[in-house]
């Protein structure tokens, strides 16, 4: 009850700040009065309303498909690599440096190559999304898997547990909080990854649409899909939180 109250006040602060920001923006845009450079928030909303059909029915689904596919690939590969690394020091030693190196690659520079390889198909965008999201997922899962204490594993061994039982009953539950932290970072990045991919070469998607509006000097039209992208990121984040809440038991949660 107390927690709700304090959550309420902290969110109230954020809402207040956001409201102030939008009011200043609105006022500034009206005063400046050059909508093709600085559209007012109200103009963006209006444009969003006008473009709703094509945005919601064509471009949002296209982007969502890229994000979901990219995240799925990242989760499967990232968790797989994390499990292998946690099982074998040799794998960890040879794979981890490569993982880190992969993160130093400027993705914007690499994205055109993906377009070259995969064409304008969905897969070039998926590749960018994977490259940007699998690192936090892998590291989160790996750290979590290593968090299980040796003592706990030994205790289970004295009960006669095999390594699969130790994995399922200790390591996995222990790894979940850290895995979800990584996943939360990854879902917000996935929106950026998909948008970058679509900017660089696509025939559908919110990033692509935003760029097309740019060529038409329609600033409000550039912002409208960006608003949707940002809402998408928030939605995905909340989705992960909900899954986390459902799959980790109360006792495991920090209060």
């Amino acid at each position, binding site marked *: 009850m107390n927690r709700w109250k304090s959550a309420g006040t902290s969110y109230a602060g954020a809402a207040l700040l956001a409201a102030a920001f939008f009011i200043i923006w609105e006022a500034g845009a009206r005063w400046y009065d050059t909508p093709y450079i600085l559209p007012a928030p109200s103009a963006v909303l209006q444009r969003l309303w006008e473009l709703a059909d094509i945005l919601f029915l064509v471009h949002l689904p296209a982007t969502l498909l890229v994000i979901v596919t990219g995240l799925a690939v990242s989760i499967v590969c990232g968790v797989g690599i994390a499990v292998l690394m946690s099982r074998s020091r040799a794998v960890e030693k040879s794979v981890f440096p490569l993982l880190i190196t992969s993160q130093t690659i400027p993705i914007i520079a690499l994205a055109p190559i993906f377009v070259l390889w995969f064409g304008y198909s969905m897969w070039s965008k998926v590749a960018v999304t994977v490259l940007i999201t699998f690192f936090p997922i892998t590291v989160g899962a790996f750290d979590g898997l290593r968090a299980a*204490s040796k*003592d*706990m594993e*030994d*205790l*289970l*061994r*004295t*009960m*006669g*547990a095999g390594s699969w*039982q130790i994995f399922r*009953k*200790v390591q996995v*539950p222990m790894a979940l909080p850290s895995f979800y932290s990584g996943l939360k970072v990854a879902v917000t990045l996935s929106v950026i990854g998909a948008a970058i991919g679509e900017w660089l070469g696509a025939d559908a998607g919110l990033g692509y649409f935003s760029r097309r509006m740019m060529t038409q000097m329609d600033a409000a039209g550039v912002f409208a899909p960006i608003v949707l992208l940002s809402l998408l990121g928030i939605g995905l984040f909340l989705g992960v939180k909900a899954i986390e809440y459902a799959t*980790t*038991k*109360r*006792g*495991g949660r920090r209060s």
Partner: protein
Amino acid sequence: MNKRYRPEHQETALEFRDVTYTHKGSQSAIFQHVQAEVKQGEFVSLLGPSGSGKSTFFRLAAGLSHPDQGTVFLHGSVPETRLGRVGYMPQQDLLLPWRTILENGMLPLEINGVPKKEAAHNVSAHLKAFGLDGVENQYPHELSGGMRQRVSFLRAVVGGSDILMLDEPFSALDSITRFMMQEWLLEQWQMAGQTLIFITHDIEEALFLSDRILLFTQPPIEGRFTEITVPLPRPRKENARDHPELLKLKRELINRMRGEGGII
């Protein structure tokens, strides 16, 4: 009321025969040709300074480590693996924080393939005796230290092995809770009659609880342990703490450990 037979008439539950053990990567041995046995139904304490090899003794007995030389017998024979044959209660309670008390108790049963329903039923039957009635659906962090130790003990008991090893189970408790837990443990043991091997740093605790105390000195330990038999009758009650015999033994123990340069 006491299901136990006199220990001296009993079979050996655990025997170390000529055990030599050196930690991997370590120069000096912890045990050299060590010989020790624990009778069925006996309460034996391992007493000694930090680093003297008490936990190592447990790991060897439980099958987590293997002797370089010599043999560990359980009930007179050498099982394929000792893992899963000896109940172990660690120093920290090591309860799984994402499991309720009931689910924590069910862990050893689940591992041995007992169906969940049956496991839950089995654990529930013990809750009352362990003073855990009504908290079975709470999580470990909601319980006091003494209660968590009882859950940990419950978990070791539920596993069903008749040899239980307790590694400093009460060392993290305040002295009042600790006294109550000692008495409670004696009661439980006097009813169920398992073989109990108990590590402690506390001389009074060892004297009050045990039939026999094995003294651990600075490693390497060679041959037989120095041994003290506590002559008090069973069942022991709280007032046995002040028995003159115990005070005398305590004095003697302290002197002996001083002589050996051990620090407890």
